[in-house]
């Protein structure tokens, strides 16, 4: 028999490491409950179609495709849309582990520890701000210095639509924006996007992140270039969330190039960065169409924290 070690991408937590995780979880759960969020504990396996292609799937005995939990948000959306249908607003939190493929549809899986919150049935910028401020205060509660970078997938979609971009071109543009790859973005725009406001606005997406007054200037510049009502609304939404989050004491920076997120995000999207971690330590966004998949179309916004990254940094 091979020596029995945990599979790559998984780990045993013993003694002090286990204690640290539980202490951090307790701190976070305390913060979530103070803000009126209640815990839900969804099952570790689900019907596979609740998750995307990143889930680790298997057939059960009846031939039904099932999956290990790959994403808490989708499960919380399922619960909110079924047993808690019509109850608004809902403030729910969770903690536990997810299992995902490292690359979609192939390769090894890894397990990650998460905790997070979902605010269901609230559509306004105050709801965005509540989630942003709670994410910021979660880092603070763990004694971690970090930054939150706010963008919008809704704004990117509006620009891609206004530019008449095909799905393939939109994916290429999204990738270039996500990599801050201005040279490639310029080449793509010059070759495939007609000159005009939409093109100028897309080029503005690779701008570096801006804090405070500079963020407002950036948003004003983008508003002047907004090629459609949809794009303008998405920008105003960022501004409103920014202002409301500030009044709740959360410092944010605006990065219109923050366009990456789970497939179901429809509006604001954000990532959390912390000194000492080379990757984002959490993130979230608005997903106004996900609950509709489970039969109860309602807006929602939420975030999750990557505890594997945060626990070693927490004091």
């Amino acid at each position, binding site marked *: 028999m091979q020596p029995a070690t945990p599979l790559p991408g998984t780990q045993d937590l013993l003694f002090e490491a286990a204690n640290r995780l539980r202490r951090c979880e307790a701190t976070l759960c305390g913060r979530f409950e103070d803000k009126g969020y209640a815990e839900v504990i969804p099952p570790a396996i689900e019907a596979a179609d609740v998750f995307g292609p990143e889930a680790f799937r298997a057939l059960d005995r009846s031939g039904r495709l099932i999956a290990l939990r790959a994403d808490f948000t989708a499960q919380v959306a399922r619960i909110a849309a079924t047993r808690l249908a019509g109850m608004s607003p809902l403030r729910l939190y969770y903690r536990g582990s997810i299992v995902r493929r490292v690359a979609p549809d192939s390769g090894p899986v890894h397990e990650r520890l998460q905790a997070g919150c979902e605010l269901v049935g609230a559509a306004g910028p105050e709801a965005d701000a509540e989630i942003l401020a709670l994410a910021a205060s979660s880092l603070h509660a763990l004694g971690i210095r970090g930054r939150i970078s706010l963008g919008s997938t809704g704004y990117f979609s509006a620009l891609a639509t206004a530019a008449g971009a095909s799905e393939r071109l939109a994916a290429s543009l999204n990738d270039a924006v996500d990599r801050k790859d*201005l040279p490639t973005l310029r080449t793509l725009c010059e070759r495939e996007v007609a000159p005009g406001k939409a093109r100028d606005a897309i080029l503005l997406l690779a701008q*570096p992140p801006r804090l405070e007054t500079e963020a407002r200037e950036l948003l004003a510049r983008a508003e002047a270039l907004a090629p459609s009502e949809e794009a303008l609304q998405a920008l105003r939404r960022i501004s409103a969330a920014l202002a409301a989050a500030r009044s709740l004491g959360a410092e944010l920076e605006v*990065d219109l190039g923050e366009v990456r997120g789970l497939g179901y995000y429809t509006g604001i999207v954000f990532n959390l960065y912390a000194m000492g971690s080379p*990757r*984002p330590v959490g993130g979230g966004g608005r997903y106004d169409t996900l609950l509709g998949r489970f039969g109860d179309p309602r807006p929602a916004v939420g975030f999750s924290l990557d505890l594997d990254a945060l626990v070693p940094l927490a004091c």
Partner: protein
Amino acid sequence: MLTIALPKGRLQKPALERFTRAGIVPDEEPGVSRKLIIAAGPAARFVVLKDGDVPLYVERGAADLGVCGIDQVLESAADLLTPVDFGFGRCRLCLAAPRGRSVTAELGRSLRVATKFPRLSSQWFLRRGVPVDLVHLSGSVELAAVSGLTDAIVDLVESGRTLEENGLVVVDEILQVTARLVVNRASYRLKVEELLPLLEKLG
């Protein structure tokens, strides 16, 4: 403090020139010194490594930024920002084969291809629906096709002289390569005050 991953080899000199012009000057000459970490004033330092290792160092945060060819960025599949195209280190990743040998004919078996770039090669053939038997080599890739180990090669072509002298011709171009500035995603946000002025000078 910014840590900069500086590649060994042909990209080092032009990369150092760009950093020097941007005001980041190494305290010792990296080509001369045997040190692996070289300070550059109080606010920066260089780590010197193989260009193929640059993406990994930067992705994992051991360096905040670095210089390497776009071929290495894509081959490593590292999750990085690539905000500046330096324009130097220009070459092409090409499919090449011995003169007169067809790589499009029905061989009755998979096309055998030798390369140092297995990921980029398999992606390219996959998109074209061509089944390939990829042989991952670490050097002298041309020899594989010349000696009959494989039918063709995928390799970087700068002037084309090595190919020519060995009786190989370019069949297709896979990627235009130049040196890129690569930046860690978290560093970009957390050290934006240090990084932005530098990016503007390098850009």
